[in-house]
């Protein structure tokens, strides 16, 4: 049941408990309780809105993906250094990676300069950081499973057998 509730919320976090209960054939109270419990357990970590900032005037956002190589710390592995990085509010996501580098750090800033300053002054100087490779995002076509520019028109006939 929890999985089904989560799948619906992942599609549309604005579904009310009543909507979800109806769609899944559950009691509303059951859904309310279940969501509360999952919020408490940090299974549900938040509710956000997916925004295409490129379409908002006077609100420039620059996104960069940074490949970071680090030295893992004795006894703490990558966790400690990851924390030192994700505590910065500019950092939107941090993933531990397999392969040629260790951490993917996704950063948002108002300008390229701001991002460059962050990398040069905050990220790179950290003791554990060996190297960084910064890639700026030029355009977002699809994010969190949503295609940004797609305009969906119902092409079907109004009535068909």
């Amino acid at each position, binding site marked *: 049941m929890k999985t089904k509730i989560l799948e*619906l919320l992942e599609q549309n976090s604005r579904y009310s408990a009543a*909507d979800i209960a*109806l*769609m*899944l*054939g559950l009691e509303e109270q059951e859904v309310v309780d279940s969501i509360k419990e999952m919020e408490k357990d940090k299974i549900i970590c938040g509710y956000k809105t997916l925004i295409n900032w490129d379409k908002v005037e006077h609100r420039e956002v620059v996104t960069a993906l940074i490949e970071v190589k680090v030295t893992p710390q004795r006894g703490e592995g990558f966790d400690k250094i990851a924390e030192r990085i994700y505590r910065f509010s500019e950092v939107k996501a941090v993933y531990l990676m397999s392969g040629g580098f260790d951490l993917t750090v996704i950063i948002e800033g108002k300008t390229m300069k701001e991002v460059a300053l962050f990398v040069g002054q905050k990220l790179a100087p950290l003791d554990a950081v060996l190297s960084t490779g910064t890639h700026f995002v030029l355009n977002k076509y699809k994010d969190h499973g949503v295609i940004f520019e797609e305009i969906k028109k*119902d092409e*079907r*006939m*109004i*009535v*068909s*057998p």
Partner: protein
Amino acid sequence: MRIEDMIAKKVAQMPPSGIRKFFDVANEIGDVISLGVGEPDFDTPWHVREEGIYSLEKGKTVYSANAGLLELRQEICRYMQRRFDLIYSPTKQCLVTVGGSEGIDLAIRTLIETGEEVLIPEPSFVSYKPCAVLAGGVPVPIPTREEDDFKLTAHELEKAITPKTKILILPFPNNPTGAIMEREDLEAIAKVLRDKNIIVISDEIYAELTYGGEHVSIAHIEGMYERTVILSGFSKAYSMTGWRLGYAVGPAPIISMMIKVHQFAIMCAPTTSQYAGIEAMRSGDEDVRKMREAYDQRRRVMLDGFRSMGLSCFEPKGAFYVFPCIKRMGMTSEEFCEKLLMDQRVVVVPGTAFGESGEGFVRASYAYSIEVIKEALARIEVFVKKHLK
């Protein structure tokens, strides 16, 4: 010469589709919310479309074998075994058709002699009757009733059988009622048919859209495999309506004759669609599961919507339609649909478009997003509250 007189009588006399009439009206009004379609709202899964595109890129644009690409027939037969525990030979018992619709026409034409009777449970899909007439057969409707959950009962079947009966159409899961036939219902039907010379054409196009249980084919009931032709297709399960791809499986002597008619009338199903179909059957089970789950959620919203307006509504267990009863409104089905359209700009289809026994009911499709369904229900509620007696 009067050109109209040149038209074959059985075509000229065929009543136009009730749906068509309604479509013209709805189309003129424009800016409507429609719950009127009989096709999925999902796009064909991208990996399936991609295979179609790839086949075009490679120039696979020639005719296929009349019966369809062998590779596709093999996948269809594997699918029938995997999903419904039915074993068919890809070379002798399987034919790829241009949608489920061609299968209906082919099967009836292959079996019917002039004057033989075709039993058609109603309300049901609009094509059976005209196809029977065109083949020189006599359609015999068997009304199904809400109190029987719109199932075909052994009793009603028995009453309808005459020495001239050749075919029983078994359209379940049913469009428009959403009714399904469960194993024990089919056992009862099989009991009536086992000692008779009647072939069952089981239209199982909505088999994958069965909720709260698994679809059972009548071919799986003892003694029925050898007298059943199953018609199905890709339109509903894989959201592939425009690709026009379906199939028929059944006894080799019937399928081989259907292939003969198909080869002269159609040649073969579109090759591009067949390549896409192979991919759908190979790796589409998860897509089907997801779509079924989404339909099931919408089904609950629709059912609850109509019931909370005070209309009685049978709980559909298959397809993507609800079939609420509007008898309390003091209007015919057609009046209801027309007034609803004019008043609230919502399109539902009169039950009578699917046979006379559909009077008193309307078909509302839930092949729409939850948002559209909620908006449509809200408008219908305003209308119903105004007129409910």
